[in-house]
């Protein structure tokens, strides 16, 4: 009888509490104008990535040799490139490539990082030591160089680029996850869960991970930006997504040879990348403040 009652209360209260916490974070987020601007900009870019093909004013691959290197005007918002293709349309269509690199690489990095990091953080001692020494070795090579080498080994194209950025990000994410797990591993609720005979994977998934959600969200937001930035660097070196596809970094580096005569071919993609990064950073800063436990009260 009493047992039933406790379960009943637990079930009815848990979702309500979760919802309110989520709403509270959203509320705090909406109070910061910079975060709202960043979030809105990012939503616009996500919208472009999904519906880019439908709203593009021109066919993104339409070659028009009579309108080569047109400067930005009302007809061609961002001008045209060396084959007379409309840059604005190409950027709209290309948003899905760029965003999928940013988000896809973070999914890989986070999955790998959660597994490796929670093993290191939770089992401690020997396992932790071995994993940390391996991570030390991996991180002795700067991240960008690691991404470049991985991209060179994995080959050209979208999937290798996502893989290279994702695998390169695992070591950093693992370290972040481990550090946060170590912080709360000693807390009473973990001891309580152990005392009622919860299995280790259950403790990690149900009790530990929800408590390190905020640093994970912050790191993923930053990581998406880092992935986009890194991918543009790869494209500049001729790795990653290749020119016929309208990925932003590839378009940017496509214009590098004519930057002195027709700067807009290079300027526009770079500007859009910078604005995307700005929106992600603004959103990340807002999230960092909104999720900060010090400010909760």
């Amino acid at each position, binding site marked *: 009888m009493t047992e039933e009652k406790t379960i009943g209360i637990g079930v009815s209260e848990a979702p309500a509490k979760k919802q309110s916490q989520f709403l509270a974070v959203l509320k705090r987020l909406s109070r910061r104008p910079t975060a709202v601007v960043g979030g809105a900009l990012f939503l616009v870019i996500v919208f472009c990535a999904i519906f880019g093909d439908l709203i593009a004013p021109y066919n993104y691959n339409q070659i028009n040799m009579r309108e080569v290197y047109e400067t930005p005007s009302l007809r061609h918002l961002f001008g045209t490139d060396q084959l007379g293709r409309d840059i604005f349309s190409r950027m709209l269509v290309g948003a899905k490539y760029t965003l999928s690199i940013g988000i896809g690489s973070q999914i890989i990095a986070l999955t790998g990082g959660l597994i490796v990091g929670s093993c290191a953080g939770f089992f401690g001692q020997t396992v932790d030591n071995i994993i940390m*020494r*391996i991570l*030390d*070795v*991996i991180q*002795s*090579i*700067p*991240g*960008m*160089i690691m*991404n*470049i*080498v*991985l991209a*060179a*080994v994995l*080959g050209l194209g979208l999937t290798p680029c996502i893989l290279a950025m994702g695998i390169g990000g695992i070591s950093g994410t693992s370290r972040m996850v481990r550090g946060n797990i170590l912080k709360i591993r000693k807390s009473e609720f973990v001891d309580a869960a152990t005392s009622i005979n919860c299995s280790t994977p259950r403790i990690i998934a149900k009790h530990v991970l929800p408590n390190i959600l905020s640093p994970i969200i912050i790191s993923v937001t930053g990581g998406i*930006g880092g992935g986009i*930035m890194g991918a*543009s*660097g790869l494209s*500049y*070196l*001729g*790795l990653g997504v290749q020119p016929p596809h309208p990925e932003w970094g590839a378009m*940017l580096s496509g214009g*590098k040879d004519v*930057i*002195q005569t027709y*700067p807009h071919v*290079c*300027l526009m993609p*770079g500007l859009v*990348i*910078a*604005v995307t*990064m*700005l929106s992600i*950073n*603004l959103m990340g800063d807002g999230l960092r403040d909104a999720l900060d436990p010090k400010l909760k009260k």
Partner: protein
Amino acid sequence: MLRYILKRLLLIIPIIVGSIILVFTIMYFCPGDPATMILGAEATEEQIYELREKMGLNDPYIVRLGRTLWSYARLDLGTSYVTGRPLTEELALRIPNTLRLSLIGIVIGLLIGIPLGVTSAVHHDEPIDYIGMLIALVGISMPGFWFAMLMVTLFAVKLRWLPPFGVGGIRYWILPILSSCLGGFAGNARQARSSMLDVLTSDYVVMARAKGLPEKEVIWKHALPNAMLPIVMMIGGAMAMSIGGGMIIETVFAIPGVGFFLADSISNRDYIAIQSCVVVIGMVFTLMMLVTDLMMAAIDPRIKDQFSSRKRKKAKKV
């Protein structure tokens, strides 16, 4: 302190060996065959087999790994497949350029970034804070090489104040260094601001103010030294960014450094050169990280204490 430095120096050896093994393993799985590349597409299978045998490419993984480690131990980085020149010489020529670019970039990034962050934190929520943080935000949002390309277009092509690429006198280095310190400076400013804000609300700063110290002394003597630890910790990340981004910037400005050589080797599919470049960059980076670790130990005595001998620890307790 000497003991700590020695221990950290010894700890570096396994990391460097580990990174050589790691890079070798990644390159081992690289598609493409150097022998076919050297001989060209018309070579017969026997010729390719013969060359592979001569280069030792047919040996098992562990034998080749051992051979690579042994030759690196003798400071022999191998011979380029493409140019046929010894890589130790090639890289020795290029390292000074890379070091100059990244080190000066890092130092300038620190010298501008930290004061900007501290000023922003001290004037929290005032116009100067907003302007400073806006600059930093724009700085971390721009791809460094894109910024470099814009600077070249403006200062070298349009205004003709500075040379667009190459190496030479100081004038050649202004644009590359400016573009390579961009990301680091912005990151440092943001980190300095947030850790300074943390410290400024702490009890000892309130105490220092309460006993009537002038504001300047409170900030520079009491707050900043305590805020330095996260900043120095962050320098490692800034250095990684500066070296990685510097690589692309070397390509933009055609500076003959390790990064430009690496980019060249990748487009030539010169695998042994790629491997050597990455190992050398990894070593330089590890040494830089060592310097930041030593700086941390100099700032924070707790870190040094972890490495002091047990005897001394006991003596301290007594």
